[in-house]
């Protein structure tokens, strides 16, 4: 029934789209400026931009050094120093706002060593991580890796767990790693933290997390071909009676939401009755 939830509005749709375009464009007037030093060269850029956008504003066009632009890929690892400080800091260029007087250099590539392995043939044990990445034993607990991590992970902790062979802990603590390589670059012991953690997570996912029982059942059903007939029927219905097909969709959608909402409290219990 029209108008129950949405009243009819009389609008100029094209004008709305033009307004959106304007709203999303960078502002014409710049009110506040900062000066940043890109590999030593000073550039005046609008305040409030990310390092990545500031470099582009200054005229750089990325080939290396930009990937997802949203903090997920690790392509824009950056080393910087603040005005008046001696300390090197690390950041992702796409997730960090420029500051006046910042000295910047981006890291285009990290030549870290990755071990090769056949996951199916590994029997994970307390020494597995050390076998593939023996250099983790060289950790001097300086915590530089942790300080370097733009994701703020407890990198040194997971290295320590790795030395002790606690694959689960390494997997959990390293889970949010975006593999930018800054830990490895800063490490005085030349540990390849992020590659070691990748191995640990895969081992954990494969050998330690229990396998889904429902999934196995569904795969058997699919392999037995039991859905083939239903797919044929539904294809026929769609072709021959599109209106009925549509109402079937809405019926399943609405009833399904109802059904699922009843399971929210204890899905497992309810499910066993239906099995």
């Amino acid at each position, binding site marked *: 029934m029209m108008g129950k939830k949405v009243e009819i509005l009389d609008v100029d749709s094209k004008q709305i789209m033009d307004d959106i375009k304007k709203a999303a464009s960078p502002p014409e007037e710049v009110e506040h400026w900062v000066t940043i030093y890109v590999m030593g060269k000073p550039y005046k850029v609008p305040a409030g931009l990310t390092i990545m956008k500031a470099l582009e504003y200054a005229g750089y066009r990325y080939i290396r050094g930009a990937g997802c632009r949203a903090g997920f890929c690790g392509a824009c690892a950056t080393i910087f120093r603040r005005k008046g400080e001696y300390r090197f800091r690390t950041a992702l260029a796409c997730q960090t706002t420029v500051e006046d007087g910042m000295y910047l250099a981006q890291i285009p590539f990290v030549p870290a060593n990755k071990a090769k392995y056949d996951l199916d043939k590994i029997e994970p044990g307390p020494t597995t991580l050390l076998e593939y990445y023996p250099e983790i034993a060289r950790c001097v607990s300086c915590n530089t890796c942790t300080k370097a991590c733009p994701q703020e992970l407890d990198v040194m902790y997971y290295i320590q767990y790795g030395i002790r062979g606690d694959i689960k802990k390494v997997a959990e603590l390293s889970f949010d790693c975006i593999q930018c390589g800054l830990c490895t670059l800063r490490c005085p012991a030349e540990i390849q933290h992020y590659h070691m953690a990748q191995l640990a997570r895969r081992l954990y*996912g494969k050998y330690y997390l229990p396998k889904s029982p429902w999934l196995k059942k569904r795969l058997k059903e699919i392999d037995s071909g039991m859905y083939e007939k239903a797919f044929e029927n539904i294809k026929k219905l769609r072709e021959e009676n599109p209106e009925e097909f549509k109402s079937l969709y809405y019926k399943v959608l609405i009833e399904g939401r109802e059904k699922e909402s009843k399971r929210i409290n204890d899905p497992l219990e309810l499910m066993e009755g239906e099995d």
Partner: protein
Amino acid sequence: MTLKLINGYPEYMRESIEMVEKTREQRIKEKAKEKELALTEEEREEVLSKFHPDYAPGGKRELKVGVNKGEIVPNEVADILEAWPALDPDEVDLNDIDYDVDILIIGGGGAGTVAALWANYEGIPAENILIATKLRHGDANSMMAQGGIQAADRPWDSPIIHYLDVLGGGHFANKHELVKALTTDAPKIIKWHEDLGVMYDKDEKGNFIERWGGGTSRKRLHSAKDYTGMEIMRVIRDEARNRDIPVLEFSPAVELITTEDGEIGGAILWNMETKEYYVVRAKATVLATGGWGRLHIRGFPTTNHYGATADGLVMAYRAGARLRDLESVQYHPTGAAYPEQIVGLLITEKVRTMGATPVNKYGERFVFPLEPRDVEAAMFIRECFGKGNCIQTPTGMRGVWLDSPMIEELQGEGAIKKNLDAMYRMYKRFGIDMTKDPILVFPTLHYQNGGVEINADAQVLKGDGSPYPRFFAGGEVEGGVHGKNRLMGNSLLDYNVFGRRAGISAAKVARNSSKPGKLTLKHVKLFTEEVKKINVPLSRRSPILLPDYRGKRVLARKIDLPILQ
């Protein structure tokens, strides 16, 4: 002085946040009743027709060249399809082959990597496979998907129900054989991931923790916190590296190579750093170049990665492939609208599936939180630009609130950090604590619903509907799977299902056929003839490879000297 912020927000936004806080308790009590806000078919149409960018006039035009001549596509897409080739075919020597391989995979994101792995499983030695990619291996939208991947693996769900959801979400425009493949392969893909060691969220018995997706009738979204895409991508990339599959980075394909007998025989790559070209001859070619987000259709910000410039559409179209469903663009309802630094970036749908409700500036509910994406996005635009019940940011963006603190109330304290760590971290970087304050959102350009048409074997179709025997596609570049609107959790699934099928099909070709016929770029010249007739400015060339975000001031002073080139 810059604007004074209180925990990340200017004072005037704080006033609205107070209103949101006032209605929160009541809204949480009535959470189960939100279903009643879901729109009927008729209401969906009313809202879409007025407030969805696809339906608003002025954004599209008819294609004047190529196989799909006469069909409507967004202006920005028409601009790159109706363009001069970036590469002059006369400058290339096709007799000097740099890489002579069984399988060329164009694109090193999810689909390309999956295709390479399955071709390798099928017995094609790694050294006979080549992945060519524009940025680094894994720099792709696949890495950025947060929410999860759909698969019907619970007893009260089935591939048929999943199929129905996909069809309804896609406005019943999807290709049957592709949706059937998508939904029946889904559980196999999840099993494959389990075996590769993907760390999905599970309970202690091994059951997946499955959540709602917008427009779905069952909870079937499998996730790995809100880093699902990253977790899958880094695992399959690690596996490709273990198997020594060769990857050429920063070397995008700029044109497909055809053969005298009308086949696809490889591609021309261009090394972006040295500017040299490479000729690749391949028995089978897989197109896995991803989508179009960086074309900024209708001026929208985007969630997409830096290289999402639809190069694959351009190359395939010139070679005679048929495109479909390109008139429909997916805008994700929840892109960040504030702060300025992250405008357009994805706020995963999982924020809503975990209980956050969108509310307007007065703290009022106005939409069922889990409509299909196009409907949800149109409702947001309606609230902001039709009704004006929105917040305007200091840079002019408008948005509605997504009441994230509800998640902590509904799912228990710590639920955000546990399940939405990427989101929490992103906001924290800019001074906002989303466990305590709501976040401001507005639709953002997200996905290419259509693309190069394929069949269930992932073979690309020609203009006449017949398949190319040696040419395959998987992932966002292909079309037909999602019809006119993709549902959440089906893009990760799509690249796995059709990347896999493309890899298996390509391996079959590589095993059973000889080298392709004589290589040629004649198709580029023929296409150029068509472009000549329609008055395209000479500066408009494609594929464009990368967007250009350089500042206007610099570009105005930029000159190219005829030295050091």
